[in-house]
């Protein structure tokens, strides 16, 4: 097949045409400042004949004698036409295009002029992506795009970042956007099986990214068909520009500390812990003799007061180094880069380092034929502790370990005696003697051939793919901790995802009328994709006491030896069209037909489409004369796309194997299945306006959207008596409505001083519009799905405070809040807020004074609630009495008449107060100084003495300041999009100093 393709390309190659009699035009192209413009395009109007300018801006082009006009253009510059007279010299001064509407933006399967857009595409460019102290680009997008919510869940370097664009539209299927990197629809998200955190995007160095396009509505995204529902993020890596080879070196150094700390949740010291424990024992009616035994067992008066929280928290180091080279000539351009990034988390045992490289070559073999390849990859080495309720989780140890349990013996060695650790684990020792690592390799490559069959007919085909491997290793030593009972154990898990695509497109553009400027752009395409997952898992036990012998090969007893596969495939045909009348009226349409292995036999193929229209009002005569208005554009779009983010084999009715007994094979029902299972429908409507006034000193975009999601992929809960807990079906519908505002203003602009303001704001209102039978569904015990309410609605018993008479916890028996009960089971659950914010966005101020720049971005998030899943242990009125408590426990009731919200402390617990309720739910509103950077550009006169073309130094703070609305919020307000705190590595604040040099 591929041979045939190359043969065809070869044939096309030899079909170039002979020229008639000719003459040569030459000249120099400069910008407004007089600098040469390399790589500008010089073409003979109405033909494919053309060339590009050299690094010094000069060009020469041989044209037929009868040629009349040449067109000179360059990226980011306004194209100009020159009538050819007798002179053979044509010099051009290209002007920067004013206004964002003239920009070219990257869209689905190609590029488009911004003025031609009917859809909503937000673009983030390299300067806002480079040199951030983040492990992956998804974290960098926070606050940069209106309506894109990016929330950290863990401060573990390399952790996954949840991104939601224009609200959550799926209950069970993925809510993650589709990531397309250099044309590759990549596997993204979490891929770990043994570790806690992995993010396949971590292998991509953000410094290699040239631009990120976020496709938000139907007109922009529907071309991706059954996977466009959650929005599409198109990442394009850097490409070289022709000219003298330019080098660039960037580096930064810094450190990470915990971004948000609430003193109310500081773990107790020994004196305080024993004070409350003694009180709790008295309240529990313990006899004095038993009390002393219990206190002694807990280490009372043993002279130890160890602060575990301080011992697990730390200041982490942060560094990165990036070097790149780019250059080339009019035929061939290249970009090469290498990078190294290292980040230590805010708790012991959390670290990531990445080594990455990127290369792109583009070669114009003939005027018609262009070849190119991009390849980039990274090797990521992560060290991460256990998380959530594991004894080996350092954060858990920080809150749970008693101050009377020492990490070290008197002789300075580690305390590894279980009884002296309250049977929890000495995480300080485990950090050194256990092992938990993950090594990820991610490679992405795209090779393409582009052939201009005719001037207005372009054929492009590419073969691309991404390849990810994860090697996860864990060793638990035989002396202490999780490995002790099995005398040591080690795991090695290997995971590989190989995903490849073949994409072919044909682009045709045609002027449709002689009388009007009526232009048609048409694209047809074909794409096939297959992703193959391969996983194998090994575990063995019984290890020698030599702690360096830590791979499964050493273990005497093999325990796990499994391997399995997980594949999916897509086959798609697609087409898009765009009609433009005099740049005033633009009509667009798209269509895609997707087939997927994930869809049930009865529903293998689906059709997805969009229509869009825009009106460039500023091109109308009645506006053109109003000089204050530089842009005015109205847009609207509607369409249908899908969400195919379900498990690869969810539609099958299944009996699984591996339910083994006495080491003989066993089978059991493993999936209910539904052969009609298919994509979830998403129908986004968008209307928007773009306004620019005063030479675009003020630019405003406002969009309003309504997304209706139907045939939701929903895990319908089953009666547990069926033997199953759920089945995935296409039932239910939902709606997301919202408003997005993006404002860019330059209040002051002078030679030496400039002040720019960027503000974005987004609201989202989510509403479930139908559920099977109209019945509400309780999800994961903490959330409820109910018609008319938001997805991710917390569904909890409502805490009513403490009975002043006896210190009992009280809950409301129903929503009227009239009657309280001290019986937890008798209290009713109610919807008490949503995990999703009502509004969020950012405000960025940028100041430039001569060589100095100051950037400050505030990120804000309002209207969600956050649940602390572990609060019952350290605030639960004596529940988990043998674990340490938080300072706030001293707000407890002590005597009749006390009015407080923390019940009487009873050793062992007070009437299920520890169980989930609104006591453990806090307001999630916060404002955070996401980014502040002070930079200085060294004057060219000085830089050039050091043979530098430019030099820039900066100091940057990230998450330096956090304001939260709720005084009782125990942990960082960023807890993923499900807003549940889970004792993860603390989110960091970072200070870095950096240097960027060009030469």
């Amino acid at each position, binding site marked *: 097949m591929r041979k045939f393709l190359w043969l065809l390309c070869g044939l096309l190659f030899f079909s170039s045409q002979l020229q008639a009699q000719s003459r040569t035009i030459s000249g120099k192209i400069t910008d407004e400042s007089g600098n040469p413009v390399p790589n500008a395009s010089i073409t003979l109007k109405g033909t494919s004949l053309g060339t590009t300018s050299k690094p010094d801006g000069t060009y020469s082009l041989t044209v037929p004698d009868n040629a009349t006009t040449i067109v000179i253009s360059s990226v980011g510059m306004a194209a100009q036409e020159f009538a050819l007279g007798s002179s053979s010299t044509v010099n051009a001064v290209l002007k920067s295009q004013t206004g964002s509407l003239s920009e070219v933006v990257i869209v689905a399967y190609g590029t488009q002029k911004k003025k031609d857009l009917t859809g909503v595409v937000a673009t983030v460019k390299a300067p806002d992506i480079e040199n951030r102290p983040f492990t992956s680009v998804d974290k960098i997008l926070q606050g940069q795009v209106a309506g894109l919510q990016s929330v950290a869940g863990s401060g573990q370097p390399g952790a996954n970042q949840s991104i939601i664009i224009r609200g959550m539209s799926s209950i069970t299927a993925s809510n993650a956007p589709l990531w397309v990197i250099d044309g590759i629809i990549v596997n993204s998200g979490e891929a770990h099986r043994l570790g806690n955190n992995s993010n396949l995007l971590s292998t991509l160095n953000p410094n290699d990214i040239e631009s990120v396009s976020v496709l938000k509505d139907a007109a922009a995204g529907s071309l991706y068909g059954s996977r466009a529902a959650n929005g599409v993020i198109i990442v394009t890596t850097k490409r070289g520009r022709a000219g003298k080879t330019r080098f660039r070196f960037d580096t930064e150094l810094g450190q990470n500390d915990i971004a948000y700390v609430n003193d109310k949740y500081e773990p107790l010291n020994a004196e305080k812990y024993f004070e409350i424990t003694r009180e709790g024992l008295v309240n529990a009616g313990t006899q004095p003799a038993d009390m002393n035994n219990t206190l002694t067992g807990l280490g009372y008066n043993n002279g130890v007061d160890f602060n575990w929280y301080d011992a697990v928290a730390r200041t982490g180091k942060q560094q990165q180094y990036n070097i790149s080279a780019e250059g080339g000539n009019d035929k061939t351009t290249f970009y090469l880069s290498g990078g190294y990034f290292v980040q230590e988390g805010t708790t012991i045992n959390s670290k990531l380092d990445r080594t990455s490289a990127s290369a792109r070559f583009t070669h114009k073999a003939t005027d018609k034929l262009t070849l190119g390849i991009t390849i980039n990859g990274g090797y990521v080495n992560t060290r991460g502790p256990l998380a959530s309720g594991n004894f080996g989780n350092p954060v858990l140890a920080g809150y749970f370990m008693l101050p009377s349990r020492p990490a070290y013996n008197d002789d300075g060695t580690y305390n590894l005696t279980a009884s002296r650790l309250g049977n929890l684990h000495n995480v300080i020792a485990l950090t050194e003697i256990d092992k938990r690592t993950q090594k990820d390799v991610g490679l992405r490559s795209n090779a393409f051939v582009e052939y201009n069959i005719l001037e207005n007919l372009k054929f492009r085909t590419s073969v691309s793919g991404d390849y990810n491997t994860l090697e996860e290793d864990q060793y638990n030593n035989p002396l202490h901790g999780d490995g002790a009972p099995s005398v040591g154990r080690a795991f090695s898990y290997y995971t590989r995802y190989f995903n490849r695509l073949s994409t072919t497109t044909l682009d045709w553009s045609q002027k449709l009328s002689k009388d009007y400027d009526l232009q048609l752009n048409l694209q047809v395409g074909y794409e096939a994709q297959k992703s193959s997952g391969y996983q194998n898992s090994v575990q063995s036990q019984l290890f020698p006491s030599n702690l360096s012998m830590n791979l499964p090969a050493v273990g005497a007893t093999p325990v796990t030896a499994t391997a399995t596969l997980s594949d999916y495939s897509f086959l798609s045909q697609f087409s898009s069209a765009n009609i433009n009348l005099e740049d005033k009226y633009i009509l667009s349409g798209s269509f895609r037909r997707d087939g997927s292995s994930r869809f049930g036999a009865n529903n*293998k193929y689906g059709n997805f489409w969009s229509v869009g229209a825009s009106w460039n009002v500023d091109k109308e005569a009645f506006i053109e004369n109003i000089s204050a208005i530089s842009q005015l554009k109205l847009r609207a779009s509607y369409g249908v796309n899908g969400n195919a983010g379900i498990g690869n084999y969810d539609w099958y009715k299944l009996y699984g194997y591996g339910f083994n007994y006495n080491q003989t094979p066993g089978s059991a029902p493993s999936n209910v299945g539904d052969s009609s299972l298919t994509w979830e429908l998403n129908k986004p409507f968008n209307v928007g306006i773009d306004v620019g006034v005063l030479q675009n000193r003020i630019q405003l975009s406002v969009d309003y959207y309504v997304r209706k999601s139907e045939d939701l992929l929903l895990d319908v809960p089953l009666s547990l008596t069926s033997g199953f807990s759920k089945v995935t079906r296409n039932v239910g519908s939902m709606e997301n409505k919202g408003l997005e505002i993006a404002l860019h203003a330059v209040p002051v602009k002078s030679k030496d001083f400039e002040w720019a303001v960027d503000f974005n704001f987004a609201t989202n209102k989510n509403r479930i519009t139908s559920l099977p039978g109209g019945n509400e569904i309780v999800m994961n015990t903490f959330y409820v799905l109910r018609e008319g309410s938001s997805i991710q609605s917390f569904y909890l018993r409502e805490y009513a405070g403490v009975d002043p008479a006896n210190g009992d916890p009280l809950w409301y028996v129903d929503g009227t809040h009239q009657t309280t009960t001290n019986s937890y089971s008798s209290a009713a659950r109610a919807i008490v807020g949503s995990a999703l914010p009502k509004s969020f966005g950012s405000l960025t101020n940028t100041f430039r004074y001569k060589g100095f720049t100051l950037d400050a971005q505030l990120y804000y998030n309002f209207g969600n609630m956050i649940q602390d899943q572990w609060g019952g242990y350290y605030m639960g009125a004596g529940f988990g009495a043998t674990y340490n408590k938080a300072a706030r426990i001293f707000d407890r009731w002590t005597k009749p008449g006390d009015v407080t919200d923390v019940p009487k402390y009873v050793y062992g617990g007070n009437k299920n107060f520890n169980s989930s309720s609104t006591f453990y739910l806090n307001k999630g509103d916060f404002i955070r100084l996401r980014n502040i950077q002070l930079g200085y550009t060294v004057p060219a006169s000085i830089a050039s003495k050091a043979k530098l073309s430019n030099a820039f130094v900066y100091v940057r703070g990230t998450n330096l300041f956090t304001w939260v609305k709720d005084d009782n919020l125990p942990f960082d307000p960023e807890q993923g999009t499900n807003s549940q705190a889970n004792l993860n590595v603390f989110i960091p604040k970072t200070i870095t100093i950096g240097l960027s040099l060009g030469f």
Partner: protein
Amino acid sequence: MNLFSKYKLVGLAVIVAAFASCSKSFLELTPPTSVSPETALSTEADLLVATKGMYAGLRTGVTIGTTSYAPDAFGRTIPVLGDVMADNAYQSSVNTNRYTLYNNYTFPVTDGNALGMWASLYAVILRANNIINAPVDANANVNQYKGEAYAVRALCYFTLVRYYARPYTEDPNKPGLPIITTYDPDFKPERSKIADVYALINSDLNQAYTLMTLFTNSSQFSKYAAKALQAKVYLTMGDMANARTAALDVINNGPFKLVGAADYVAYWANNAIREDKLETVFEVSSDAVSNLAFDALSYLYSQAGNYGDFLVASDLYSLFSAGDVRRTLYPTGERPKNTPVVFINKYTGLAGDRSDTKILRLSEMYLIAAEASVGTNEADAIKYVNEITSRRGAAPIASTGAALYEDIITERRKELAFEGDRYLDLQRLKRDVVRSTNYPSAARTIAFTNFRRILPIPQAEMDANPNIRSQQNEGYK
């Protein structure tokens, strides 16, 4: 457009067509480690594999969403509740917070262990139903597998009905369990009466007894294991005549032999499944590969593992005379330091092959025969109970009347301690739970009428099944 470029377009069309032509098989990707239910249950050999999967479900509980309830079947929770909710095992002041709410009698309707047990046993019931209903032609092996499935289904219902419904001996017409014998994922059942559940259990055990002919090993049901379970079912129903008949059928006609004092410690130290028919009538096996790892029963009781949370109640320990071989399973020690306590050493398999969970032992058949004989033949009762005391180095029982009955109940407590039996005895006997001072003062006497004497129908079941919502157990509404 000239002729040549037409050819180019034809060429492109060929390319697109070539890609498109391979479409059908390209989109058909079958699951790598699973097959359809029809394929999985189509032959005799398939049924054998399915029975292993069924037994595996008795050992390891289910996962719901991303939460694992692996310990909540017979692998840990079921045997543990039988002693912690009673008066045998209490939580040490140094503990990892497992089963605290049961030690303290404060579990709410949302309790995870109650959810896990319910979901896990109904998942096993589905596995058994599928084997029973599989359209495979009968032969001796197929009958054996179906018989085992009947027995497992009976065991699951018998366990659930005793934990989630009031005792049969109190009132058989109170709400029992939803009865599920065929697969219908969308069925939202109501609770049947307790009597109906017991009728199904007895019907299943009769089927099992009739169909089975083989004894494979101690970890699988056999003909007389089904009869032994039925003896316990009748005892629980208070049907002493049938209990005695069934127990004696196992004693007299079954292949099992009693363990003696000399072998007693070795018997408990053995983690392997038995083919020698010594003592164990049926047990749920945890092998060296498929086991609950840290969540195994042994980890909760043994001091050599990570937890060792539960200890022997002082009143139970004082029942063992110095010469009683059973006392050697309960060594004394300190936890925390300087606090003398008694450890539970019945389960020692921490690495490799884990300790199995004993469900039915021959010794219990003698104890059932003794208890069921008290009312009609005291001499027999004394004879049967002393078959046990004489094999443990304990003093022979010689009492009569009510004292004899009490001695037999006490002998059950001693013999079956930490095997999940004691609490269910107190349930069928309609007695208060009266616990030693080892337990928290607020939870030392749990009246028979206390609503927490049975577990809540899990919140998740109430949420998913509208037809059961009005049938929650008293006190959890």
